[in-house]
Protein backbone atom coordinates (compact mmCIF):
# COMPACT_ATOMS: atom_id res chain seq x y z
CA UNK A 1 0.00 0.00 0.00
CA UNK A 2 1.28 3.43 -0.94
CA UNK A 3 1.57 6.13 1.67
CA UNK A 4 0.64 9.65 0.69
CA UNK A 5 0.41 12.96 2.47
CA UNK A 6 -3.07 14.42 2.74
CA UNK A 7 -1.89 17.53 0.90
CA UNK A 8 -1.73 15.48 -2.32
CA UNK A 9 -5.51 15.02 -2.34
CA UNK A 10 -6.99 17.66 -0.06
CA UNK A 11 -6.76 21.27 1.08
CA UNK A 12 -7.54 22.86 4.43
CA UNK A 13 -8.11 26.16 6.29
CA UNK A 14 -7.83 26.94 10.02
CA UNK A 15 -10.09 29.16 12.09
CA UNK A 16 -10.25 30.07 15.79
CA UNK A 17 -12.85 30.98 18.37
CA UNK A 18 -11.66 31.37 21.93
CA UNK A 19 -9.60 28.30 22.83
CA UNK A 20 -11.21 26.20 20.08
CA UNK A 21 -9.50 25.58 16.75
CA UNK A 22 -11.24 24.28 13.66
CA UNK A 23 -9.69 23.02 10.43
CA UNK A 24 -11.63 22.18 7.30
CA UNK A 25 -10.44 19.30 5.11
CA UNK A 26 -11.66 19.37 1.52
CA UNK A 27 -10.74 16.84 -1.19
CA UNK A 28 -9.65 18.39 -4.49
CA UNK A 29 -11.76 15.74 -6.19
CA UNK A 30 -15.09 14.72 -4.70
CA UNK A 31 -14.33 11.03 -5.37
CA UNK A 32 -11.74 11.14 -2.56
CA UNK A 33 -14.35 12.12 0.05
CA UNK A 34 -15.03 8.50 1.04
CA UNK A 35 -11.39 7.55 1.42
CA UNK A 36 -10.85 10.58 3.65
CA UNK A 37 -13.88 9.62 5.71
CA UNK A 38 -12.40 6.18 6.27
CA UNK A 39 -8.77 7.15 6.89
CA UNK A 40 -8.80 10.54 8.57
CA UNK A 41 -10.51 9.68 11.82
CA UNK A 42 -10.63 12.09 14.77
CA UNK A 43 -8.38 9.69 16.71
CA UNK A 44 -5.68 9.78 14.00
CA UNK A 45 -5.94 13.55 13.77
CA UNK A 46 -5.62 13.95 17.54
CA UNK A 47 -2.48 11.82 17.37
CA UNK A 48 -1.08 13.99 14.55
CA UNK A 49 -1.38 17.12 16.72
CA UNK A 50 0.12 15.54 19.86
CA UNK A 51 0.68 17.93 22.77
CA UNK A 52 -0.63 20.96 20.83
CA UNK A 53 -4.22 19.90 21.44
CA UNK A 54 -5.18 19.22 25.05
CA UNK A 55 -8.87 18.43 24.52
CA UNK A 56 -11.18 16.39 22.34
CA UNK A 57 -11.05 16.32 18.52
CA UNK A 58 -14.39 16.01 16.77
CA UNK A 59 -15.13 15.52 13.07
CA UNK A 60 -18.23 16.82 11.29
CA UNK A 61 -19.00 15.36 7.86
CA UNK A 62 -20.63 17.53 5.22
CA UNK A 63 -22.02 15.19 2.59
CA UNK A 64 -23.66 18.13 0.78
CA UNK A 65 -20.37 19.81 -0.18
CA UNK A 66 -18.04 16.81 0.30
CA UNK A 67 -15.96 18.35 3.05
CA UNK A 68 -15.02 17.71 6.69
CA UNK A 69 -14.72 20.01 9.65
CA UNK A 70 -12.36 19.07 12.49
CA UNK A 71 -12.95 20.83 15.79
CA UNK A 72 -10.14 20.82 18.37
CA UNK A 73 -11.01 21.71 21.96
CA UNK A 74 -8.57 23.31 24.37
CA UNK A 75 -6.13 23.74 21.52
CA UNK A 76 -4.95 27.34 21.44
CA UNK A 77 -3.06 27.88 24.70
CA UNK A 78 -6.06 29.72 26.18
CA UNK A 79 -7.07 31.51 22.98
CA UNK A 80 -5.94 34.49 20.98
CA UNK A 81 -5.96 37.09 23.77
CA UNK A 82 -4.09 34.91 26.27
CA UNK A 83 -1.82 32.64 24.26
CA UNK A 84 1.95 33.15 24.21
CA UNK A 85 2.44 31.12 21.02
CA UNK A 86 4.04 32.59 17.89
CA UNK A 87 0.82 31.84 15.98
CA UNK A 88 -1.85 32.72 18.52
CA UNK A 89 -4.74 31.97 16.13
CA UNK A 90 -3.42 28.56 15.09
CA UNK A 91 -3.70 29.73 11.49
CA UNK A 92 -0.61 27.77 10.41
CA UNK A 93 -1.99 24.50 11.76
CA UNK A 94 -4.00 23.66 8.62
CA UNK A 95 -0.64 22.65 7.16
CA UNK A 96 0.03 20.38 10.13
CA UNK A 97 -3.18 18.53 9.22
CA UNK A 98 -2.43 18.11 5.51
CA UNK A 99 1.10 16.98 6.41
CA UNK A 100 -0.49 13.82 7.86
CA UNK A 101 0.20 10.54 6.03
CA UNK A 102 -2.46 8.03 5.05
CA UNK A 103 -2.24 4.64 3.35
CA UNK A 104 -4.06 4.43 0.03
Amino acid sequence: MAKIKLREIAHARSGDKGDILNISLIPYEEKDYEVLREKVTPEKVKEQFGSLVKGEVKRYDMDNIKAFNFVFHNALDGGITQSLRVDRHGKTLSFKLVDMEIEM
Partner: protein
Amino acid sequence: MVDTLRIGTGAGYSGDRIEPAASIAKSGDLDYLVFECLAERTMALAHLRRLSDPDSGYDPLLEERLRLVLSPCVDNKIKIITNMGAANPLAAGKKTRSLLNEMGHACLKVGIVLEDDILDAMVDSDFSVLKEPDKIHEIRDKIISANTYLGASPIIELLKSKADIIITGRTCDPSLFLAPMMHEHGWKDDDWDKIGFGITVAHLMECGAQVTGGYFADPGYKNVEGLANLSFPIAEIFANQEAVITKLPDTGGEVSLRTVKEQLLYEVHDPSSYKTADGIADFTKIKLEEKGQDMVKISGGGGRARPAYLKVNIGFRNGFLGEAQISYGGYGAKNRAQLAAQILMKRFADLKLDFEALRFDFIGSGSLWPGGSPSISNEIRLRVIGRARIRKDVEKLCNEVEALYTNGPAGGGGVTRSIEENIAITSAFIPREIVTVQTKILGEENGQD
Protein backbone atom coordinates in the same frame (compact mmCIF):
# COMPACT_ATOMS: atom_id res chain seq x y z
CA MET B 1 -38.99 45.30 -1.87
CA VAL B 2 -36.44 44.61 -4.57
CA ASP B 3 -35.90 41.62 -6.88
CA THR B 4 -32.18 41.42 -6.38
CA LEU B 5 -29.91 42.99 -3.85
CA ARG B 6 -26.18 43.49 -4.28
CA ILE B 7 -23.95 43.69 -1.22
CA GLY B 8 -20.19 44.14 -1.32
CA THR B 9 -17.65 43.61 1.44
CA GLY B 10 -15.52 46.69 2.14
CA ALA B 11 -13.23 45.09 4.73
CA GLY B 12 -12.81 41.63 6.25
CA TYR B 13 -10.87 42.79 9.31
CA SER B 14 -9.75 46.09 10.81
CA GLY B 15 -6.39 46.25 9.06
CA ASP B 16 -7.63 45.03 5.67
CA ARG B 17 -6.63 46.57 2.32
CA ILE B 18 -8.47 49.81 1.66
CA GLU B 19 -8.51 50.31 -2.13
CA PRO B 20 -10.61 47.23 -3.08
CA ALA B 21 -13.55 48.79 -1.18
CA ALA B 22 -13.39 51.87 -3.41
CA SER B 23 -13.16 49.67 -6.53
CA ILE B 24 -16.38 47.78 -5.77
CA ALA B 25 -18.12 51.01 -4.70
CA LYS B 26 -17.24 52.50 -8.10
CA SER B 27 -17.98 49.60 -10.41
CA GLY B 28 -19.63 46.80 -8.42
CA ASP B 29 -23.21 48.01 -9.03
CA LEU B 30 -23.79 47.77 -5.28
CA ASP B 31 -26.73 48.63 -3.08
CA TYR B 32 -24.79 48.18 0.16
CA LEU B 33 -21.14 48.23 1.20
CA VAL B 34 -20.38 46.44 4.49
CA PHE B 35 -17.15 46.88 6.44
CA GLU B 36 -16.58 44.08 8.99
CA CYS B 37 -13.71 45.20 11.20
CA LEU B 38 -13.98 43.50 14.60
CA ALA B 39 -12.34 40.50 16.18
CA GLU B 40 -11.88 39.47 19.81
CA ARG B 41 -8.43 41.01 19.98
CA THR B 42 -9.39 44.11 17.96
CA MET B 43 -12.19 44.83 20.41
CA ALA B 44 -9.87 44.44 23.41
CA LEU B 45 -7.35 46.87 21.89
CA ALA B 46 -10.14 49.36 21.10
CA HIS B 47 -11.20 49.37 24.76
CA LEU B 48 -7.62 49.98 25.81
CA ARG B 49 -7.45 53.04 23.51
CA ARG B 50 -10.75 54.38 24.84
CA LEU B 51 -9.45 54.14 28.41
CA SER B 52 -6.61 56.50 27.58
CA ASP B 53 -8.73 58.83 25.41
CA PRO B 54 -12.55 58.91 25.83
CA ASP B 55 -13.01 60.22 22.25
CA SER B 56 -11.21 57.24 20.72
CA GLY B 57 -11.91 53.51 20.80
CA TYR B 58 -13.34 53.24 17.28
CA ASP B 59 -11.53 51.83 14.24
CA PRO B 60 -8.29 53.74 13.55
CA LEU B 61 -8.89 53.46 9.78
CA LEU B 62 -12.50 54.77 9.88
CA GLU B 63 -11.62 58.16 8.43
CA GLU B 64 -9.25 56.84 5.75
CA ARG B 65 -11.77 54.23 4.59
CA LEU B 66 -14.70 56.66 4.50
CA ARG B 67 -12.72 59.36 2.66
CA LEU B 68 -11.99 56.87 -0.09
CA VAL B 69 -15.49 55.41 -0.52
CA LEU B 70 -17.86 58.28 0.32
CA SER B 71 -17.96 59.93 -3.11
CA PRO B 72 -18.58 56.73 -5.10
CA CYS B 73 -21.16 55.64 -2.50
CA VAL B 74 -23.03 58.96 -2.84
CA ASP B 75 -22.81 58.84 -6.65
CA ASN B 76 -24.13 55.28 -6.80
CA LYS B 77 -26.60 55.55 -3.89
CA ILE B 78 -24.84 52.86 -1.84
CA LYS B 79 -25.57 52.56 1.86
CA ILE B 80 -22.74 51.77 4.25
CA ILE B 81 -22.98 49.43 7.24
CA THR B 82 -20.02 48.86 9.54
CA ASN B 83 -18.98 47.75 13.02
CA MET B 84 -16.09 50.24 12.98
CA GLY B 85 -17.70 51.84 16.06
CA ALA B 86 -15.87 49.12 18.02
CA ALA B 87 -15.63 50.26 21.67
CA ASN B 88 -17.11 53.70 20.96
CA PRO B 89 -19.84 53.88 18.26
CA LEU B 90 -20.97 57.34 19.39
CA ALA B 91 -17.51 58.86 18.88
CA ALA B 92 -17.27 57.09 15.49
CA GLY B 93 -20.68 58.53 14.55
CA LYS B 94 -19.63 62.05 15.48
CA LYS B 95 -16.39 61.70 13.55
CA THR B 96 -18.34 60.49 10.51
CA ARG B 97 -20.81 63.35 10.88
CA SER B 98 -18.06 65.98 10.80
CA LEU B 99 -16.39 64.20 7.87
CA LEU B 100 -19.66 64.31 5.88
CA ASN B 101 -20.13 68.00 6.60
CA GLU B 102 -16.53 68.71 5.55
CA MET B 103 -16.82 66.71 2.31
CA GLY B 104 -20.05 68.36 1.21
CA HIS B 105 -22.33 65.39 1.99
CA ALA B 106 -24.08 67.02 4.95
CA CYS B 107 -27.49 65.72 3.89
CA LEU B 108 -26.53 62.08 4.58
CA LYS B 109 -27.86 60.56 7.79
CA VAL B 110 -25.61 58.64 10.16
CA GLY B 111 -27.24 55.96 12.30
CA ILE B 112 -25.55 54.48 15.35
CA VAL B 113 -26.27 51.45 17.49
CA LEU B 114 -25.54 51.89 21.19
CA GLU B 115 -25.62 49.14 23.78
CA ASP B 116 -26.32 50.05 27.39
CA ASP B 117 -23.77 48.96 29.93
CA ILE B 118 -24.68 45.45 31.03
CA LEU B 119 -21.79 44.71 33.31
CA ASP B 120 -23.53 45.60 36.57
CA ALA B 121 -26.62 43.65 35.59
CA MET B 122 -24.42 40.66 34.81
CA VAL B 123 -22.57 40.74 38.10
CA ASP B 124 -25.79 41.31 40.08
CA SER B 125 -27.49 38.43 38.35
CA ASP B 126 -24.54 36.19 39.05
CA PHE B 127 -23.89 35.06 35.49
CA SER B 128 -20.93 32.78 35.12
CA VAL B 129 -18.39 33.04 32.38
CA LEU B 130 -18.05 30.35 29.79
CA LYS B 131 -15.21 28.22 31.04
CA GLU B 132 -14.52 29.24 34.59
CA PRO B 133 -17.77 29.61 36.56
CA ASP B 134 -16.32 31.63 39.44
CA LYS B 135 -14.29 33.96 37.39
CA ILE B 136 -16.66 36.89 36.96
CA HIS B 137 -16.30 37.69 40.67
CA GLU B 138 -12.64 36.89 40.75
CA ILE B 139 -11.91 39.28 37.87
CA ARG B 140 -14.58 41.90 38.68
CA ASP B 141 -12.14 44.70 39.56
CA LYS B 142 -10.04 43.97 36.47
CA ILE B 143 -12.93 44.06 33.98
CA ILE B 144 -12.78 46.96 31.53
CA SER B 145 -15.56 46.01 29.12
CA ALA B 146 -18.56 43.79 28.46
CA ASN B 147 -20.09 43.78 25.01
CA THR B 148 -23.02 41.74 23.77
CA TYR B 149 -23.00 40.26 20.27
CA LEU B 150 -26.08 42.11 18.99
CA GLY B 151 -28.22 41.04 16.04
CA ALA B 152 -29.66 42.62 12.90
CA SER B 153 -32.74 44.30 14.40
CA PRO B 154 -31.21 47.66 15.48
CA ILE B 155 -29.62 47.98 12.03
CA ILE B 156 -32.98 47.27 10.35
CA GLU B 157 -34.57 49.91 12.57
CA LEU B 158 -32.01 52.46 11.35
CA LEU B 159 -32.54 51.43 7.73
CA LYS B 160 -36.26 52.08 8.21
CA SER B 161 -35.31 55.53 9.50
CA LYS B 162 -33.47 56.10 6.19
CA ALA B 163 -29.95 56.12 7.63
CA ASP B 164 -27.30 56.19 4.88
CA ILE B 165 -24.35 55.15 7.02
CA ILE B 166 -24.84 52.79 9.96
CA ILE B 167 -22.18 52.34 12.63
CA THR B 168 -22.33 49.67 15.30
CA GLY B 169 -20.04 48.33 17.99
CA ARG B 170 -20.00 44.61 18.84
CA THR B 171 -22.59 43.03 16.58
CA CYS B 172 -22.52 39.49 15.20
CA ASP B 173 -20.49 39.74 12.00
CA PRO B 174 -23.16 38.09 9.80
CA SER B 175 -25.86 40.44 11.16
CA LEU B 176 -24.21 43.37 9.34
CA PHE B 177 -24.99 41.62 6.03
CA LEU B 178 -28.22 39.93 7.08
CA ALA B 179 -29.89 43.23 8.08
CA PRO B 180 -30.07 44.65 4.52
CA MET B 181 -31.25 41.26 3.18
CA MET B 182 -34.14 41.17 5.68
CA HIS B 183 -34.93 44.86 5.15
CA GLU B 184 -34.87 44.86 1.33
CA HIS B 185 -36.49 41.48 0.78
CA GLY B 186 -39.00 41.83 3.60
CA TRP B 187 -37.88 38.60 5.26
CA LYS B 188 -39.70 38.17 8.57
CA ASP B 189 -37.55 37.81 11.67
CA ASP B 190 -39.01 34.37 12.38
CA ASP B 191 -38.73 33.00 8.83
CA TRP B 192 -35.94 30.71 10.02
CA ASP B 193 -35.07 29.11 6.69
CA LYS B 194 -34.57 32.51 5.03
CA ILE B 195 -32.66 33.81 8.05
CA GLY B 196 -30.47 30.68 8.10
CA PHE B 197 -29.79 31.11 4.38
CA GLY B 198 -29.02 34.82 4.84
CA ILE B 199 -26.60 34.03 7.69
CA THR B 200 -24.85 31.52 5.42
CA VAL B 201 -24.34 34.07 2.65
CA ALA B 202 -23.27 36.67 5.25
CA HIS B 203 -20.76 34.22 6.71
CA LEU B 204 -19.23 33.73 3.26
CA MET B 205 -18.90 37.51 2.80
CA GLU B 206 -17.68 38.63 6.20
CA CYS B 207 -13.97 37.93 5.72
CA GLY B 208 -13.58 39.86 2.49
CA ALA B 209 -11.08 38.39 0.04
CA GLN B 210 -10.93 35.07 1.90
CA VAL B 211 -13.72 33.93 -0.45
CA THR B 212 -12.28 35.53 -3.62
CA GLY B 213 -8.89 33.80 -3.59
CA GLY B 214 -7.14 35.42 -0.64
CA TYR B 215 -5.62 33.20 2.07
CA PHE B 216 -5.89 30.27 -0.31
CA ALA B 217 -2.83 30.00 -2.58
CA ASP B 218 -0.36 27.13 -2.16
CA PRO B 219 1.98 27.22 -5.16
CA GLY B 220 2.00 23.93 -7.06
CA TYR B 221 -1.22 22.79 -5.37
CA LYS B 222 -3.59 25.74 -5.37
CA ASN B 223 -2.31 28.33 -7.81
CA VAL B 224 -4.01 31.73 -7.68
CA GLU B 225 -3.12 34.61 -9.97
CA GLY B 226 -3.06 38.29 -9.08
CA LEU B 227 -3.01 38.25 -5.27
CA ALA B 228 -1.75 41.84 -5.24
CA ASN B 229 -4.92 42.90 -7.06
CA LEU B 230 -7.71 40.94 -5.37
CA SER B 231 -11.34 41.97 -5.58
CA PHE B 232 -13.46 42.01 -2.45
CA PRO B 233 -16.57 39.84 -2.87
CA ILE B 234 -19.96 40.88 -4.17
CA ALA B 235 -23.09 38.91 -3.30
CA GLU B 236 -26.21 39.11 -5.41
CA ILE B 237 -29.08 37.96 -3.24
CA PHE B 238 -32.52 37.03 -4.54
CA ALA B 239 -35.69 37.12 -2.43
CA ASN B 240 -36.36 33.41 -3.08
CA GLN B 241 -33.41 32.11 -1.04
CA GLU B 242 -30.77 32.03 -3.76
CA ALA B 243 -27.58 34.00 -4.07
CA VAL B 244 -24.49 34.30 -6.23
CA ILE B 245 -21.04 35.21 -4.91
CA THR B 246 -18.81 36.90 -7.46
CA LYS B 247 -16.06 39.49 -7.86
CA LEU B 248 -15.11 42.37 -10.12
CA PRO B 249 -13.83 41.41 -13.59
CA ASP B 250 -10.18 42.15 -14.42
CA THR B 251 -8.97 41.55 -10.89
CA GLY B 252 -6.86 38.77 -9.38
CA GLY B 253 -8.08 35.82 -7.36
CA GLU B 254 -10.96 33.45 -8.01
CA VAL B 255 -14.45 32.60 -6.80
CA SER B 256 -14.85 28.84 -7.17
CA LEU B 257 -16.31 25.86 -5.36
CA ARG B 258 -12.98 25.33 -3.63
CA THR B 259 -12.64 28.91 -2.31
CA VAL B 260 -16.29 28.96 -1.20
CA LYS B 261 -16.00 25.59 0.58
CA GLU B 262 -12.91 26.72 2.52
CA GLN B 263 -14.64 29.91 3.61
CA LEU B 264 -17.93 28.18 4.46
CA LEU B 265 -16.12 26.20 7.17
CA TYR B 266 -13.92 29.05 8.40
CA GLU B 267 -14.31 29.55 12.17
CA VAL B 268 -17.18 27.05 12.33
CA HIS B 269 -17.80 24.35 14.92
CA ASP B 270 -20.90 22.23 14.24
CA PRO B 271 -21.80 23.08 10.60
CA SER B 272 -25.44 22.11 11.16
CA SER B 273 -25.73 24.65 13.95
CA TYR B 274 -24.02 27.96 13.22
CA LYS B 275 -25.37 30.28 15.93
CA THR B 276 -25.83 34.02 15.73
CA ALA B 277 -28.10 36.45 17.58
CA ASP B 278 -30.59 36.30 14.66
CA GLY B 279 -30.97 32.57 14.21
CA ILE B 280 -29.16 29.29 13.72
CA ALA B 281 -27.97 28.43 10.22
CA ASP B 282 -27.63 24.87 8.94
CA PHE B 283 -24.70 24.72 6.50
CA THR B 284 -25.26 21.00 5.85
CA LYS B 285 -28.33 21.75 3.72
CA ILE B 286 -26.67 24.27 1.42
CA LYS B 287 -26.15 23.55 -2.27
CA LEU B 288 -23.18 25.09 -4.11
CA GLU B 289 -22.80 25.28 -7.90
CA GLU B 290 -20.33 26.99 -10.20
CA LYS B 291 -22.48 29.05 -12.58
CA GLY B 292 -19.70 30.55 -14.68
CA GLN B 293 -16.33 32.24 -14.38
CA ASP B 294 -15.98 33.44 -10.78
CA MET B 295 -19.65 32.90 -9.98
CA VAL B 296 -20.81 30.45 -7.33
CA LYS B 297 -24.49 29.99 -6.68
CA ILE B 298 -25.76 29.20 -3.19
CA SER B 299 -29.22 27.77 -2.69
CA GLY B 300 -31.19 25.70 -0.26
CA GLY B 301 -30.00 25.81 3.28
CA GLY B 302 -32.11 26.19 6.32
CA GLY B 303 -32.30 27.53 9.80
CA ARG B 304 -33.75 27.26 13.26
CA ALA B 305 -35.00 29.70 15.87
CA ARG B 306 -32.55 32.15 17.38
CA PRO B 307 -30.96 31.15 20.71
CA ALA B 308 -32.55 32.48 23.91
CA TYR B 309 -29.14 33.57 25.12
CA LEU B 310 -26.75 36.15 23.68
CA LYS B 311 -22.98 35.91 23.80
CA VAL B 312 -21.10 38.55 25.76
CA ASN B 313 -17.38 39.17 25.53
CA ILE B 314 -15.79 40.40 28.71
CA GLY B 315 -12.43 42.14 28.55
CA PHE B 316 -10.25 42.19 31.64
CA ARG B 317 -6.78 43.39 32.55
CA ASN B 318 -4.48 40.40 32.51
CA GLY B 319 -1.06 41.80 33.39
CA PHE B 320 1.68 42.74 30.93
CA LEU B 321 3.24 40.94 28.00
CA GLY B 322 6.88 41.42 27.16
CA GLU B 323 8.44 39.84 24.08
CA ALA B 324 11.99 40.01 22.76
CA GLN B 325 13.83 38.20 19.99
CA ILE B 326 17.44 37.67 18.92
CA SER B 327 18.89 35.81 15.92
CA TYR B 328 21.82 33.40 15.60
CA GLY B 329 23.28 32.36 12.24
CA GLY B 330 25.72 29.98 10.63
CA TYR B 331 27.36 26.86 12.06
CA GLY B 332 25.97 25.90 15.49
CA ALA B 333 23.21 28.50 15.42
CA LYS B 334 20.77 26.27 17.31
CA ASN B 335 23.36 25.44 19.99
CA ARG B 336 24.06 29.11 20.61
CA ALA B 337 20.33 29.96 20.70
CA GLN B 338 19.80 27.16 23.24
CA LEU B 339 22.70 28.44 25.33
CA ALA B 340 21.14 31.91 25.25
CA ALA B 341 17.84 30.47 26.50
CA GLN B 342 19.63 28.70 29.39
CA ILE B 343 21.39 31.92 30.36
CA LEU B 344 18.11 33.83 30.32
CA MET B 345 16.33 31.27 32.52
CA LYS B 346 19.12 31.53 35.10
CA ARG B 347 19.05 35.33 34.96
CA PHE B 348 15.26 35.49 35.34
CA ALA B 349 15.51 33.27 38.43
CA ASP B 350 18.39 35.29 39.94
CA LEU B 351 16.50 38.55 39.36
CA LYS B 352 13.37 36.93 40.91
CA LEU B 353 11.19 37.95 37.97
CA ASP B 354 7.66 36.74 38.60
CA PHE B 355 6.04 35.42 35.42
CA GLU B 356 2.55 33.93 35.26
CA ALA B 357 3.53 32.40 31.94
CA LEU B 358 6.85 32.22 30.14
CA ARG B 359 7.74 30.71 26.79
CA PHE B 360 10.86 30.19 24.67
CA ASP B 361 10.61 29.50 20.94
CA PHE B 362 13.31 28.64 18.43
CA ILE B 363 11.97 30.20 15.25
CA GLY B 364 13.20 28.13 12.33
CA SER B 365 13.17 24.96 14.41
CA GLY B 366 9.75 23.82 15.53
CA SER B 367 8.28 27.07 16.88
CA LEU B 368 4.89 26.48 15.22
CA TRP B 369 4.55 22.84 16.12
CA PRO B 370 6.96 20.26 17.53
CA GLY B 371 9.11 18.81 14.78
CA GLY B 372 7.35 21.07 12.29
CA SER B 373 10.42 22.63 10.76
CA PRO B 374 13.76 21.12 9.76
CA SER B 375 16.29 21.39 12.59
CA ILE B 376 19.16 21.67 10.12
CA SER B 377 18.36 25.35 9.62
CA ASN B 378 21.53 27.42 9.89
CA GLU B 379 19.69 30.38 11.23
CA ILE B 380 17.57 30.46 14.37
CA ARG B 381 15.65 33.28 15.99
CA LEU B 382 15.19 32.93 19.72
CA ARG B 383 11.86 34.35 20.89
CA VAL B 384 11.17 34.91 24.56
CA ILE B 385 7.72 35.98 25.78
CA GLY B 386 6.47 36.38 29.33
CA ARG B 387 3.35 37.58 31.08
CA ALA B 388 3.67 39.20 34.51
CA ARG B 389 1.47 41.15 36.94
CA ILE B 390 4.06 43.91 37.14
CA ARG B 391 5.22 45.84 34.09
CA LYS B 392 8.78 46.09 35.45
CA ASP B 393 9.20 42.32 35.25
CA VAL B 394 8.52 42.22 31.52
CA GLU B 395 10.74 45.26 30.96
CA LYS B 396 13.53 43.30 32.62
CA LEU B 397 12.81 40.32 30.39
CA CYS B 398 13.37 42.52 27.34
CA ASN B 399 16.49 44.10 28.86
CA GLU B 400 17.97 40.69 29.56
CA VAL B 401 17.47 39.56 25.96
CA GLU B 402 19.07 42.77 24.70
CA ALA B 403 21.97 42.38 27.12
CA LEU B 404 22.83 39.10 25.36
CA TYR B 405 24.61 41.43 22.93
CA THR B 406 27.46 41.86 25.41
CA ASN B 407 26.88 38.99 27.86
CA GLY B 408 25.49 36.12 25.82
CA PRO B 409 26.80 33.61 23.26
CA ALA B 410 28.78 34.80 20.24
CA GLY B 411 27.15 36.29 17.19
CA GLY B 412 23.66 37.17 18.41
CA GLY B 413 22.02 39.98 16.45
CA GLY B 414 18.87 41.80 15.41
CA VAL B 415 17.20 42.23 18.80
CA THR B 416 13.61 43.43 18.78
CA ARG B 417 11.46 44.01 21.85
CA SER B 418 7.90 45.03 22.68
CA ILE B 419 5.74 45.46 25.77
CA GLU B 420 1.97 45.74 25.95
CA GLU B 421 -0.74 45.58 28.54
CA ASN B 422 -2.63 42.32 28.04
CA ILE B 423 -6.39 42.64 27.79
CA ALA B 424 -7.81 39.13 27.85
CA ILE B 425 -11.28 38.22 26.66
CA THR B 426 -13.60 35.68 28.15
CA SER B 427 -17.22 34.94 27.25
CA ALA B 428 -20.57 34.50 28.93
CA PHE B 429 -24.10 33.82 27.73
CA ILE B 430 -26.91 36.01 29.06
CA PRO B 431 -30.69 36.04 28.51
CA ARG B 432 -31.49 38.49 25.71
CA GLU B 433 -34.08 40.30 27.88
CA ILE B 434 -31.46 41.98 30.05
CA VAL B 435 -29.77 43.61 27.06
CA THR B 436 -31.04 47.05 26.08
CA VAL B 437 -30.01 48.71 22.84
CA GLN B 438 -30.59 52.23 21.60
CA THR B 439 -30.40 53.52 18.08
CA LYS B 440 -29.73 57.12 17.25
CA ILE B 441 -29.66 59.19 14.08
CA LEU B 442 -27.04 61.89 13.83
CA GLY B 443 -28.47 64.34 11.32
CA GLU B 444 -26.98 67.43 9.71
CA GLU B 445 -27.50 69.52 12.84
CA ASN B 446 -25.44 67.21 15.11
CA GLY B 447 -22.07 68.04 13.60
CA GLN B 448 -19.88 68.56 16.63
CA ASP B 449 -20.65 68.86 20.28
